[in-house]
Protein backbone atom coordinates (compact mmCIF):
# COMPACT_ATOMS: atom_id res chain seq x y z
CA UNK A 1 0.00 0.00 0.00
CA UNK A 2 1.29 3.41 -0.85
CA UNK A 3 -0.15 6.84 -0.42
CA UNK A 4 2.64 8.83 -1.96
CA UNK A 5 1.98 10.95 -5.01
CA UNK A 6 5.38 10.95 -6.76
CA UNK A 7 6.72 7.67 -8.03
CA UNK A 8 8.85 5.73 -5.57
CA UNK A 9 11.64 3.41 -6.53
CA UNK A 10 9.47 0.35 -5.88
CA UNK A 11 6.98 1.52 -8.48
CA UNK A 12 9.30 1.84 -11.48
CA UNK A 13 10.63 -1.13 -13.42
CA UNK A 14 14.31 -1.67 -12.59
CA UNK A 15 14.87 -4.45 -15.06
CA UNK A 16 12.15 -4.12 -17.68
CA UNK A 17 11.38 -7.06 -19.94
CA UNK A 18 13.51 -7.26 -23.08
CA UNK A 19 13.46 -10.01 -25.64
CA UNK A 20 16.51 -12.26 -25.34
CA UNK A 21 18.08 -14.02 -28.34
CA UNK A 22 17.62 -17.22 -26.29
CA UNK A 23 13.87 -16.91 -26.98
CA UNK A 24 14.56 -17.34 -30.71
CA UNK A 25 17.16 -20.11 -30.46
CA UNK A 26 16.46 -23.16 -32.65
CA UNK A 27 17.60 -25.47 -29.88
CA UNK A 28 17.44 -24.42 -26.22
CA UNK A 29 20.36 -22.18 -25.27
CA UNK A 30 22.68 -23.48 -22.54
CA UNK A 31 23.89 -21.07 -19.83
CA UNK A 32 26.54 -21.76 -17.21
CA UNK A 33 24.63 -20.55 -14.15
CA UNK A 34 20.96 -19.64 -14.12
CA UNK A 35 19.59 -17.96 -11.02
CA UNK A 36 15.89 -17.81 -10.27
CA UNK A 37 14.96 -14.66 -8.35
CA UNK A 38 16.35 -11.11 -8.42
CA UNK A 39 15.94 -10.56 -4.68
CA UNK A 40 18.95 -9.62 -2.55
CA UNK A 41 20.31 -13.17 -2.63
CA UNK A 42 19.90 -13.92 -6.34
CA UNK A 43 21.48 -10.59 -7.30
CA UNK A 44 24.43 -11.08 -4.95
CA UNK A 45 24.95 -14.59 -6.33
CA UNK A 46 24.97 -13.34 -9.91
CA UNK A 47 27.51 -10.60 -9.15
CA UNK A 48 29.75 -13.09 -7.34
CA UNK A 49 29.72 -15.55 -10.26
CA UNK A 50 30.21 -12.89 -12.92
CA UNK A 51 33.03 -11.32 -10.94
CA UNK A 52 34.78 -14.68 -11.14
CA UNK A 53 34.19 -14.83 -14.88
CA UNK A 54 31.25 -17.25 -14.82
CA UNK A 55 28.26 -16.42 -16.99
CA UNK A 56 25.20 -15.77 -14.81
CA UNK A 57 21.62 -15.19 -15.96
CA UNK A 58 19.05 -14.01 -13.41
CA UNK A 59 15.37 -14.67 -14.11
CA UNK A 60 12.66 -12.84 -12.19
CA UNK A 61 8.91 -12.98 -12.68
CA UNK A 62 8.71 -9.30 -11.73
CA UNK A 63 10.57 -6.23 -12.99
CA UNK A 64 10.76 -4.17 -9.81
CA UNK A 65 12.42 -4.33 -6.42
CA UNK A 66 10.60 -6.39 -3.82
CA UNK A 67 7.26 -5.18 -2.62
CA UNK A 68 6.19 -4.61 0.95
CA UNK A 69 7.97 -3.57 4.12
CA UNK A 70 10.88 -5.94 4.29
CA UNK A 71 14.51 -5.97 5.45
CA UNK A 72 15.88 -2.80 6.97
CA UNK A 73 18.80 -3.89 9.11
CA UNK A 74 22.04 -5.09 7.53
CA UNK A 75 24.93 -6.38 9.58
CA UNK A 76 28.69 -6.10 9.23
CA UNK A 77 29.37 -9.46 7.57
CA UNK A 78 26.93 -8.98 4.68
CA UNK A 79 28.32 -5.46 4.22
CA UNK A 80 31.80 -6.96 4.03
CA UNK A 81 30.56 -9.45 1.44
CA UNK A 82 29.02 -6.58 -0.51
CA UNK A 83 32.35 -4.81 -0.19
CA UNK A 84 33.93 -7.77 -1.93
CA UNK A 85 31.16 -7.63 -4.56
CA UNK A 86 31.87 -3.94 -5.20
CA UNK A 87 28.83 -2.21 -3.70
CA UNK A 88 29.31 -2.14 0.09
CA UNK A 89 30.14 1.54 0.38
CA UNK A 90 27.06 2.71 -1.54
CA UNK A 91 24.94 0.93 1.07
CA UNK A 92 26.84 2.42 4.00
CA UNK A 93 26.72 5.94 2.58
CA UNK A 94 22.96 5.83 2.15
CA UNK A 95 22.25 3.80 5.27
CA UNK A 96 21.61 5.03 8.78
CA UNK A 97 24.14 3.91 11.37
CA UNK A 98 22.97 3.36 14.92
CA UNK A 99 24.55 2.21 18.15
CA UNK A 100 22.09 3.02 20.92
CA UNK A 101 19.03 0.99 21.79
CA UNK A 102 16.34 1.59 24.40
CA UNK A 103 14.10 -0.99 25.99
CA UNK A 104 10.71 0.00 27.38
CA UNK A 105 8.38 -2.08 29.53
CA UNK A 106 4.83 -0.98 30.15
CA UNK A 107 4.95 2.82 30.46
CA UNK A 108 8.63 3.27 31.29
CA UNK A 109 12.14 2.92 29.91
CA UNK A 110 13.87 0.04 31.71
CA UNK A 111 17.32 0.49 30.25
CA UNK A 112 19.47 1.76 27.42
CA UNK A 113 22.40 0.06 25.72
CA UNK A 114 25.19 0.99 23.35
CA UNK A 115 26.53 -1.62 20.93
CA UNK A 116 29.99 -0.01 21.36
CA UNK A 117 31.30 -1.33 18.08
CA UNK A 118 34.92 -2.47 17.98
CA UNK A 119 37.25 -0.04 16.19
CA UNK A 120 39.41 -0.88 13.20
CA UNK A 121 36.83 -2.28 10.77
CA UNK A 122 36.10 -0.98 7.30
CA UNK A 123 32.35 -1.56 7.75
CA UNK A 124 30.04 -0.57 10.62
CA UNK A 125 28.34 -3.09 12.91
CA UNK A 126 24.92 -2.36 11.40
CA UNK A 127 23.16 -0.04 9.02
CA UNK A 128 19.48 0.49 8.46
CA UNK A 129 18.53 0.68 4.81
CA UNK A 130 15.31 -0.06 2.99
CA UNK A 131 15.46 -3.35 1.09
CA UNK A 132 14.46 -1.49 -2.09
CA UNK A 133 17.66 0.57 -1.93
CA UNK A 134 19.65 -2.54 -1.18
CA UNK A 135 18.28 -4.22 -4.30
CA UNK A 136 18.65 -1.07 -6.39
CA UNK A 137 22.36 -0.80 -5.54
CA UNK A 138 22.88 -4.43 -6.45
CA UNK A 139 21.17 -3.82 -9.80
CA UNK A 140 23.37 -0.73 -10.31
CA UNK A 141 26.40 -2.92 -9.70
CA UNK A 142 25.13 -5.42 -12.28
CA UNK A 143 24.72 -2.57 -14.79
CA UNK A 144 28.23 -1.28 -14.11
CA UNK A 145 29.64 -4.78 -14.61
CA UNK A 146 27.72 -5.16 -17.88
CA UNK A 147 29.35 -1.98 -19.13
CA UNK A 148 32.75 -3.57 -18.67
CA UNK A 149 31.59 -6.68 -20.54
CA UNK A 150 31.03 -8.96 -17.54
CA UNK A 151 28.88 -12.03 -18.38
CA UNK A 152 25.84 -11.06 -16.30
CA UNK A 153 22.22 -10.48 -17.24
CA UNK A 154 18.87 -9.87 -15.51
CA UNK A 155 15.74 -10.91 -17.36
CA UNK A 156 12.66 -9.19 -15.97
CA UNK A 157 9.20 -10.73 -16.30
CA UNK A 158 10.72 -14.14 -16.93
CA UNK A 159 8.69 -16.51 -14.83
CA UNK A 160 10.02 -20.01 -14.39
CA UNK A 161 7.24 -22.52 -14.97
CA UNK A 162 9.12 -25.80 -14.96
CA UNK A 163 12.43 -27.16 -13.73
CA UNK A 164 13.88 -30.61 -14.46
CA UNK A 165 17.28 -31.85 -13.25
CA UNK A 166 18.85 -33.91 -16.06
CA UNK A 167 21.92 -35.05 -14.14
CA UNK A 168 24.51 -33.03 -16.04
CA UNK A 169 22.31 -29.96 -16.60
CA UNK A 170 18.90 -28.54 -15.74
CA UNK A 171 16.03 -27.85 -18.16
CA UNK A 172 13.83 -24.83 -17.58
CA UNK A 173 10.62 -23.59 -19.11
CA UNK A 174 10.11 -19.85 -18.85
CA UNK A 175 7.07 -17.68 -19.44
CA UNK A 176 7.41 -14.10 -20.70
CA UNK A 177 5.02 -11.39 -21.97
CA UNK A 178 5.87 -12.74 -25.44
CA UNK A 179 5.30 -16.38 -24.68
CA UNK A 180 7.23 -19.33 -23.35
CA UNK A 181 10.78 -20.49 -24.14
CA UNK A 182 13.03 -23.30 -22.94
CA UNK A 183 16.47 -22.76 -21.45
CA UNK A 184 19.22 -25.05 -20.18
CA UNK A 185 21.60 -24.41 -17.30
CA UNK A 186 24.76 -26.20 -16.22
CA UNK A 187 23.79 -25.21 -12.70
CA UNK A 188 20.59 -23.73 -11.34
CA UNK A 189 20.56 -21.58 -8.22
CA UNK A 190 17.09 -21.20 -6.74
CA UNK A 191 16.83 -17.86 -4.93
CA UNK A 192 13.10 -17.60 -5.45
CA UNK A 193 12.12 -16.67 -1.91
CA UNK A 194 10.27 -18.26 0.98
CA UNK A 195 7.44 -19.45 -1.25
CA UNK A 196 9.99 -20.98 -3.66
CA UNK A 197 8.10 -22.36 -6.67
CA UNK A 198 11.27 -24.33 -7.54
CA UNK A 199 11.06 -26.15 -4.23
CA UNK A 200 7.43 -26.94 -4.90
CA UNK A 201 8.13 -28.04 -8.52
CA UNK A 202 10.76 -30.45 -7.21
CA UNK A 203 8.45 -31.72 -4.48
CA UNK A 204 10.89 -30.82 -1.70
CA UNK A 205 10.17 -30.31 1.98
CA UNK A 206 10.22 -27.07 3.99
CA UNK A 207 9.53 -27.87 7.60
CA UNK A 208 9.61 -25.91 10.82
CA UNK A 209 7.59 -23.81 13.14
CA UNK A 210 4.94 -21.20 12.48
CA UNK A 211 4.57 -18.62 15.24
CA UNK A 212 0.90 -18.05 15.90
CA UNK A 213 1.12 -14.32 15.90
CA UNK A 214 0.66 -11.45 13.49
CA UNK A 215 2.76 -8.34 13.15
CA UNK A 216 1.74 -5.10 11.54
CA UNK A 217 4.78 -3.68 9.78
CA UNK A 218 4.37 -0.04 8.86
CA UNK A 219 6.89 2.23 7.19
CA UNK A 220 5.93 5.81 7.89
CA UNK A 221 7.41 9.05 6.65
CA UNK A 222 7.63 11.67 9.36
CA UNK A 223 9.61 14.68 10.35
CA UNK A 224 10.11 13.75 13.97
CA UNK A 225 13.01 14.37 16.26
CA UNK A 226 13.22 10.83 17.61
CA UNK A 227 16.93 10.03 17.85
CA UNK A 228 18.67 7.47 15.63
CA UNK A 229 18.17 4.63 18.07
CA UNK A 230 16.40 1.31 18.21
CA UNK A 231 13.40 1.52 20.55
CA UNK A 232 11.69 -1.66 21.63
CA UNK A 233 8.59 -1.82 23.82
CA UNK A 234 7.31 -4.80 25.74
CA UNK A 235 3.67 -4.48 26.70
CA UNK A 236 3.35 -0.72 26.02
CA UNK A 237 0.19 1.26 26.92
CA UNK A 238 -0.47 1.88 23.21
CA UNK A 239 -0.35 -1.83 22.37
CA UNK A 240 -1.37 -3.60 25.57
CA UNK A 241 -0.13 -7.13 26.07
CA UNK A 242 1.91 -6.95 22.84
CA UNK A 243 5.22 -5.51 21.65
CA UNK A 244 6.38 -2.66 19.41
CA UNK A 245 9.53 -1.53 17.63
CA UNK A 246 10.58 1.84 16.23
CA UNK A 247 13.66 2.09 14.02
CA UNK A 248 14.96 4.78 11.70
CA UNK A 249 15.64 4.36 7.99
CA UNK A 250 17.06 6.85 5.46
CA UNK A 251 14.86 9.61 3.93
CA UNK A 252 12.84 10.27 7.10
CA UNK A 253 11.23 6.83 6.91
CA UNK A 254 10.61 4.99 10.17
CA UNK A 255 9.93 1.31 10.59
CA UNK A 256 7.22 0.46 13.10
CA UNK A 257 6.44 -3.13 14.08
CA UNK A 258 3.33 -3.74 16.14
CA UNK A 259 2.49 -7.19 17.41
CA UNK A 260 -1.22 -7.81 16.89
CA UNK A 261 -1.85 -11.28 18.28
CA UNK A 262 -3.24 -14.31 16.51
CA UNK A 263 -6.97 -13.79 16.40
CA UNK A 264 -7.31 -10.83 14.06
CA UNK A 265 -8.80 -9.93 10.74
CA UNK A 266 -5.74 -9.14 8.62
CA UNK A 267 -7.57 -7.24 5.90
CA UNK A 268 -9.34 -5.05 8.47
CA UNK A 269 -6.17 -4.32 10.43
CA UNK A 270 -4.34 -3.25 7.29
CA UNK A 271 -6.85 -0.52 6.44
CA UNK A 272 -5.50 3.01 6.99
CA UNK A 273 -8.52 3.89 9.16
CA UNK A 274 -7.38 1.20 11.60
CA UNK A 275 -3.63 1.64 11.23
CA UNK A 276 -3.52 5.41 11.66
CA UNK A 277 -5.22 5.57 15.10
CA UNK A 278 -2.88 2.84 16.35
CA UNK A 279 0.16 4.78 15.19
CA UNK A 280 -1.21 8.02 16.67
CA UNK A 281 -1.47 6.33 20.05
CA UNK A 282 2.16 5.34 19.72
CA UNK A 283 3.63 8.52 18.26
CA UNK A 284 1.42 11.09 19.94
CA UNK A 285 -1.32 13.19 18.38
CA UNK A 286 0.80 16.04 17.10
CA UNK A 287 3.34 14.02 15.10
CA UNK A 288 2.57 14.33 11.40
CA UNK A 289 3.19 11.19 9.38
CA UNK A 290 2.36 9.55 6.09
CA UNK A 291 2.17 5.82 5.45
CA UNK A 292 4.70 4.51 2.94
CA UNK A 293 3.39 1.00 3.22
CA UNK A 294 1.79 -1.40 5.56
CA UNK A 295 1.90 -5.17 5.60
CA UNK A 296 0.87 -7.87 8.04
CA UNK A 297 3.11 -10.88 8.54
CA UNK A 298 2.93 -14.18 10.33
CA UNK A 299 6.43 -15.40 11.01
CA UNK A 300 7.91 -18.81 10.51
CA UNK A 301 11.18 -20.53 11.23
CA UNK A 302 11.85 -23.40 8.85
CA UNK A 303 14.39 -24.83 6.45
CA UNK A 304 14.89 -27.45 3.79
CA UNK A 305 16.53 -30.64 4.96
CA UNK A 306 19.21 -30.27 2.27
CA UNK A 307 20.04 -27.17 0.24
CA UNK A 308 21.66 -28.99 -2.67
CA UNK A 309 19.68 -31.34 -4.90
CA UNK A 310 21.80 -32.54 -7.82
CA UNK A 311 22.39 -29.59 -10.13
CA UNK A 312 19.91 -27.39 -8.28
CA UNK A 313 21.17 -25.42 -5.30
CA UNK A 314 18.89 -23.44 -3.00
CA UNK A 315 19.95 -20.22 -1.28
CA UNK A 316 18.37 -17.46 0.80
CA UNK A 317 14.73 -17.57 1.89
CA UNK A 318 14.06 -20.41 -0.56
CA UNK A 319 16.30 -22.63 1.58
CA UNK A 320 15.51 -21.24 5.03
CA UNK A 321 13.18 -18.76 6.60
CA UNK A 322 13.48 -17.04 9.96
CA UNK A 323 11.37 -14.55 11.89
CA UNK A 324 12.78 -11.06 11.40
CA UNK A 325 13.78 -10.53 15.02
CA UNK A 326 17.52 -10.27 14.78
CA UNK A 327 17.63 -9.36 11.10
CA UNK A 328 18.88 -12.67 9.86
CA UNK A 329 17.01 -13.27 6.59
CA UNK A 330 18.83 -11.35 3.90
CA UNK A 331 21.93 -11.22 6.07
CA UNK A 332 22.24 -14.99 6.13
CA UNK A 333 21.18 -15.36 2.50
CA UNK A 334 24.22 -13.33 1.47
CA UNK A 335 26.39 -15.69 3.47
CA UNK A 336 24.90 -18.58 1.48
CA UNK A 337 26.00 -17.26 -1.86
CA UNK A 338 29.34 -16.13 -0.39
CA UNK A 339 29.85 -19.78 0.54
CA UNK A 340 28.58 -21.16 -2.75
CA UNK A 341 30.15 -19.08 -5.52
CA UNK A 342 33.81 -20.01 -5.06
CA UNK A 343 33.00 -23.69 -4.61
CA UNK A 344 30.97 -23.86 -7.79
CA UNK A 345 33.69 -21.94 -9.64
CA UNK A 346 36.35 -24.52 -8.62
CA UNK A 347 34.03 -27.37 -9.59
CA UNK A 348 33.26 -25.81 -12.99
CA UNK A 349 36.99 -25.28 -13.58
CA UNK A 350 37.63 -28.93 -12.76
CA UNK A 351 39.92 -27.90 -9.88
CA UNK A 352 37.71 -29.36 -7.15
CA UNK A 353 35.54 -32.48 -7.08
CA UNK A 354 31.77 -32.06 -7.21
CA UNK A 355 31.61 -33.37 -3.66
CA UNK A 356 32.92 -29.95 -2.52
CA UNK A 357 29.27 -28.89 -2.79
CA UNK A 358 28.41 -31.22 0.08
CA UNK A 359 30.23 -28.76 2.31
CA UNK A 360 27.82 -26.02 1.16
CA UNK A 361 25.05 -28.12 2.63
CA UNK A 362 26.91 -28.83 5.85
CA UNK A 363 28.12 -25.28 6.44
CA UNK A 364 24.99 -23.39 5.47
CA UNK A 365 22.58 -25.81 7.16
CA UNK A 366 24.66 -25.18 10.27
CA UNK A 367 24.27 -21.43 9.67
CA UNK A 368 20.53 -21.77 9.13
CA UNK A 369 20.11 -23.80 12.31
CA UNK A 370 22.00 -21.18 14.29
CA UNK A 371 19.77 -18.45 12.88
CA UNK A 372 16.58 -20.42 13.44
CA UNK A 373 17.60 -21.13 17.04
CA UNK A 374 18.36 -17.47 17.73
CA UNK A 375 15.31 -16.10 16.05
CA UNK A 376 12.99 -18.70 17.68
CA UNK A 377 14.35 -17.74 21.09
CA UNK A 378 13.81 -14.04 20.42
CA UNK A 379 10.29 -14.71 19.25
CA UNK A 380 9.60 -16.79 22.36
CA UNK A 381 10.79 -13.92 24.56
CA UNK A 382 8.90 -11.23 22.66
CA UNK A 383 5.69 -13.24 22.39
CA UNK A 384 5.53 -15.58 25.41
CA UNK A 385 3.46 -18.64 24.64
CA UNK A 386 2.42 -19.63 28.18
CA UNK A 387 1.50 -17.94 31.43
CA UNK A 388 4.79 -19.02 33.02
CA UNK A 389 6.84 -17.89 30.08
CA UNK A 390 5.23 -14.46 30.33
CA UNK A 391 5.80 -14.37 34.10
CA UNK A 392 9.51 -15.11 33.69
CA UNK A 393 9.79 -12.67 30.80
CA UNK A 394 8.20 -9.88 32.86
CA UNK A 395 10.45 -10.76 35.81
CA UNK A 396 13.51 -10.36 33.58
CA UNK A 397 12.25 -6.96 32.39
CA UNK A 398 11.44 -5.71 35.90
CA UNK A 399 14.85 -6.82 37.14
CA UNK A 400 16.60 -5.26 34.14
CA UNK A 401 15.43 -1.84 35.31
CA UNK A 402 17.08 -2.28 38.71
CA UNK A 403 20.08 -4.51 38.03
CA UNK A 404 22.59 -4.93 35.22
CA UNK A 405 22.67 -8.68 35.58
CA UNK A 406 19.24 -9.19 34.01
CA UNK A 407 19.95 -7.16 30.87
CA UNK A 408 21.69 -9.93 28.91
CA UNK A 409 18.54 -12.02 29.42
CA UNK A 410 16.34 -9.45 27.69
CA UNK A 411 15.87 -10.69 24.14
CA UNK A 412 14.32 -8.26 21.69
CA UNK A 413 16.27 -9.85 18.83
CA UNK A 414 19.89 -11.01 18.86
CA UNK A 415 21.36 -9.14 15.98
CA UNK A 416 22.87 -11.15 13.19
CA UNK A 417 26.49 -12.24 13.62
CA UNK A 418 28.29 -14.41 11.07
CA UNK A 419 28.42 -18.14 11.47
CA UNK A 420 31.62 -19.97 12.36
CA UNK A 421 31.78 -23.31 10.55
CA UNK A 422 32.92 -25.34 13.53
CA UNK A 423 33.32 -28.99 12.64
CA UNK A 424 33.27 -28.39 8.88
CA UNK A 425 35.05 -31.08 6.85
CA UNK A 426 36.96 -28.28 5.09
CA UNK A 427 38.71 -27.15 8.29
CA UNK A 428 42.09 -28.43 9.40
CA UNK A 429 42.46 -28.91 13.17
CA UNK A 430 43.47 -25.73 14.99
CA UNK A 431 47.26 -25.93 15.38
CA UNK A 432 47.88 -22.41 16.73
CA UNK A 433 48.26 -22.76 20.49
CA UNK A 434 47.01 -19.60 22.22
CA UNK A 435 45.39 -18.28 19.02
CA UNK A 436 42.25 -16.14 19.44
CA UNK A 437 39.00 -18.15 19.38
CA UNK A 438 37.33 -15.64 17.06
CA UNK A 439 39.72 -16.52 14.20
CA UNK A 440 39.80 -20.29 14.70
CA UNK A 441 39.37 -22.57 11.66
CA UNK A 442 35.84 -22.13 10.32
CA UNK A 443 35.53 -18.51 11.49
CA UNK A 444 35.11 -15.59 9.09
CA UNK A 445 38.21 -13.39 9.17
CA UNK A 446 37.88 -10.39 11.44
CA UNK A 447 38.72 -7.17 9.64
CA UNK A 448 41.73 -5.17 10.81
CA UNK A 449 43.27 -1.87 9.77
CA UNK A 450 46.48 -2.18 7.75
CA UNK A 451 48.70 0.80 7.10
CA UNK A 452 47.11 1.45 3.71
CA UNK A 453 43.62 0.05 4.03
CA UNK A 454 41.86 -2.94 5.52
CA UNK A 455 42.61 -6.63 5.73
CA UNK A 456 39.42 -8.02 4.17
CA UNK A 457 39.83 -5.86 1.11
CA UNK A 458 43.34 -7.29 0.64
CA UNK A 459 42.07 -10.84 1.00
CA UNK A 460 39.56 -10.44 -1.82
CA UNK A 461 38.03 -13.62 -3.20
CA UNK A 462 40.91 -16.07 -3.59
CA UNK A 463 42.84 -18.44 -1.36
CA UNK A 464 45.45 -16.55 0.66
CA UNK A 465 48.46 -17.58 2.66
CA UNK A 466 48.52 -15.09 5.50
CA UNK A 467 51.60 -14.71 7.67
CA UNK A 468 52.24 -12.69 10.80
CA UNK A 469 55.85 -12.70 11.97
CA UNK A 470 56.51 -15.97 10.10
CA UNK A 471 58.47 -16.89 6.96
CA UNK A 472 56.77 -18.46 3.96
CA UNK A 473 57.19 -18.54 0.19
CA UNK A 474 55.65 -15.62 -1.72
CA UNK A 475 53.52 -17.98 -3.80
CA UNK A 476 52.59 -21.64 -3.88
CA UNK A 477 50.62 -23.74 -6.36
CA UNK A 478 48.61 -26.60 -4.90
CA UNK A 479 46.70 -28.71 -7.42
CA UNK A 480 45.71 -25.70 -9.53
CA UNK A 481 45.05 -23.39 -6.57
CA UNK A 482 47.42 -20.44 -6.73
CA UNK A 483 48.16 -19.14 -3.26
CA UNK A 484 49.61 -15.68 -2.81
CA UNK A 485 51.20 -14.67 0.42
CA UNK A 486 49.99 -11.68 2.41
CA UNK A 487 52.45 -10.77 5.17
CA UNK A 488 51.06 -8.64 8.00
CA UNK A 489 52.83 -6.50 10.55
CA UNK A 490 51.82 -7.54 14.07
CA UNK A 491 50.11 -4.23 14.88
CA UNK A 492 47.99 -4.10 18.02
CA UNK A 493 44.76 -4.97 16.20
CA UNK A 494 46.36 -7.70 14.07
CA UNK A 495 48.02 -9.26 17.12
CA UNK A 496 44.82 -9.17 19.18
CA UNK A 497 42.73 -10.65 16.35
CA UNK A 498 45.16 -13.15 14.82
CA UNK A 499 47.96 -13.96 17.30
CA UNK A 500 46.44 -13.95 20.77
CA UNK A 501 49.11 -15.50 22.96
CA UNK A 502 51.08 -16.87 20.01
CA UNK A 503 54.19 -15.01 18.77
CA UNK A 504 53.77 -15.84 15.08
CA UNK A 505 51.10 -17.36 12.85
CA UNK A 506 50.41 -18.71 9.37
CA UNK A 507 46.79 -18.82 8.18
CA UNK A 508 45.16 -20.41 5.16
CA UNK A 509 42.18 -18.22 4.19
CA UNK A 510 39.41 -19.41 1.86
CA UNK A 511 37.98 -17.30 -0.99
CA UNK A 512 34.94 -16.51 1.21
CA UNK A 513 37.37 -15.12 3.80
CA UNK A 514 36.80 -17.91 6.29
CA UNK A 515 39.82 -19.42 8.05
CA UNK A 516 40.62 -22.94 6.77
CA UNK A 517 43.71 -23.67 8.88
CA UNK A 518 46.32 -22.00 11.09
CA UNK A 519 49.72 -22.86 12.51
CA UNK A 520 52.51 -21.09 14.43
CA UNK A 521 54.88 -21.41 11.43
CA UNK A 522 54.94 -22.43 7.77
CA UNK A 523 55.16 -26.09 6.84
CA UNK A 524 54.71 -26.87 3.16
CA UNK A 525 53.32 -30.37 3.61
CA UNK A 526 50.77 -29.18 6.16
CA UNK A 527 49.79 -26.27 3.90
CA UNK A 528 49.31 -28.57 0.89
CA UNK A 529 47.19 -30.96 2.93
CA UNK A 530 45.06 -28.09 4.27
CA UNK A 531 44.45 -26.69 0.77
CA UNK A 532 43.44 -30.14 -0.49
CA UNK A 533 41.10 -30.47 2.43
CA UNK A 534 39.61 -26.99 1.91
CA UNK A 535 38.66 -27.87 -1.68
CA UNK A 536 37.04 -31.14 -0.73
CA UNK A 537 39.88 -33.42 -1.90
CA UNK A 538 40.23 -35.23 1.37
Amino acid at each position, binding site marked *: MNQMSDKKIFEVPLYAYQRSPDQDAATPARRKVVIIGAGPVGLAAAIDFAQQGIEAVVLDDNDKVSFGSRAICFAKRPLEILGRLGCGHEMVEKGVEWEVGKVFFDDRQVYEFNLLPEKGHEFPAFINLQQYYFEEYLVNRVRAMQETGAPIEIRGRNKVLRVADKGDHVNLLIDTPEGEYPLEADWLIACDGAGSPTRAMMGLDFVGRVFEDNFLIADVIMEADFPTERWFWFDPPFNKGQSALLHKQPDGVWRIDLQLGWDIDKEEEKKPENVIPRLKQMLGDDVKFELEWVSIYTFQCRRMEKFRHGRVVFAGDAAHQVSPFGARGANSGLQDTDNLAWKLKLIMDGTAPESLLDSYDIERVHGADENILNSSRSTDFITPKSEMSRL*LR*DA*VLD*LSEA*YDFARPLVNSGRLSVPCTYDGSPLNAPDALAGGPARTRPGAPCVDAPLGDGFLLKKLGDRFTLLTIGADAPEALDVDGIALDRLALEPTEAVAARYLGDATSAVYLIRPDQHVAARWPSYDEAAMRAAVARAIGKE
Partner: protein
Amino acid sequence: MSDLILTPNIPGADDFYAELLATHEGLTKADSDALNARLVLVLANHIGDRAVLSAALQAAALRKEDAA
Protein backbone atom coordinates in the same frame (compact mmCIF):
# COMPACT_ATOMS: atom_id res chain seq x y z
CA MET B 1 29.64 -33.71 37.47
CA SER B 2 28.16 -30.71 39.16
CA ASP B 3 28.60 -29.43 42.67
CA LEU B 4 24.95 -28.80 43.37
CA ILE B 5 24.46 -29.02 47.12
CA LEU B 6 21.49 -31.16 48.02
CA THR B 7 22.33 -31.65 51.70
CA PRO B 8 21.36 -29.11 54.39
CA ASN B 9 23.34 -25.93 53.75
CA ILE B 10 21.37 -22.98 55.19
CA PRO B 11 22.31 -22.02 58.74
CA GLY B 12 19.17 -21.12 60.67
CA ALA B 13 16.82 -22.85 58.28
CA ASP B 14 13.71 -21.81 60.18
CA ASP B 15 14.72 -18.18 60.12
CA PHE B 16 15.31 -18.29 56.38
CA TYR B 17 11.98 -19.96 55.75
CA ALA B 18 10.18 -17.38 57.87
CA GLU B 19 11.89 -14.60 55.93
CA LEU B 20 10.82 -16.17 52.65
CA LEU B 21 7.20 -16.29 53.81
CA ALA B 22 7.40 -12.77 55.18
CA THR B 23 8.58 -11.45 51.85
CA HIS B 24 5.44 -12.84 50.25
CA GLU B 25 3.11 -11.65 52.97
CA GLY B 26 0.24 -9.47 51.85
CA LEU B 27 0.96 -10.03 48.18
CA THR B 28 -1.67 -11.14 45.71
CA LYS B 29 -1.10 -14.50 44.03
CA ALA B 30 0.04 -12.69 40.86
CA ASP B 31 2.51 -10.50 42.76
CA SER B 32 3.83 -13.50 44.67
CA ASP B 33 4.31 -15.43 41.46
CA ALA B 34 6.20 -12.48 40.01
CA LEU B 35 8.35 -12.24 43.11
CA ASN B 36 9.20 -15.93 42.92
CA ALA B 37 10.14 -15.56 39.28
CA ARG B 38 12.44 -12.65 40.12
CA LEU B 39 13.92 -14.59 43.02
CA VAL B 40 14.75 -17.53 40.77
CA LEU B 41 16.54 -15.20 38.37
CA VAL B 42 18.45 -13.38 41.12
CA LEU B 43 19.60 -16.67 42.65
CA ALA B 44 20.45 -18.16 39.27
CA ASN B 45 22.63 -15.17 38.44
CA HIS B 46 24.39 -15.46 41.78
CA ILE B 47 25.19 -19.11 41.12
CA GLY B 48 26.26 -18.42 37.56
CA ASP B 49 27.80 -21.86 37.04
CA ARG B 50 25.88 -23.38 34.10
CA ALA B 51 26.44 -26.97 35.22
CA VAL B 52 25.14 -26.23 38.72
CA LEU B 53 22.14 -24.41 37.25
CA SER B 54 21.30 -27.36 35.01
CA ALA B 55 21.60 -29.72 37.96
CA ALA B 56 19.36 -27.42 40.02
CA LEU B 57 16.71 -27.35 37.27
CA GLN B 58 16.79 -31.15 37.13
CA ALA B 59 16.65 -31.44 40.92
CA ALA B 60 13.70 -29.07 41.18
CA ALA B 61 11.80 -30.97 38.48
CA LEU B 62 11.77 -33.97 40.87
CA ARG B 63 11.99 -36.42 38.00
CA LYS B 64 12.21 -40.05 39.07
CA GLU B 65 15.36 -40.84 37.07
CA ASP B 66 17.26 -37.96 38.69
CA ALA B 67 16.46 -39.11 42.19
CA ALA B 68 18.83 -42.07 42.11
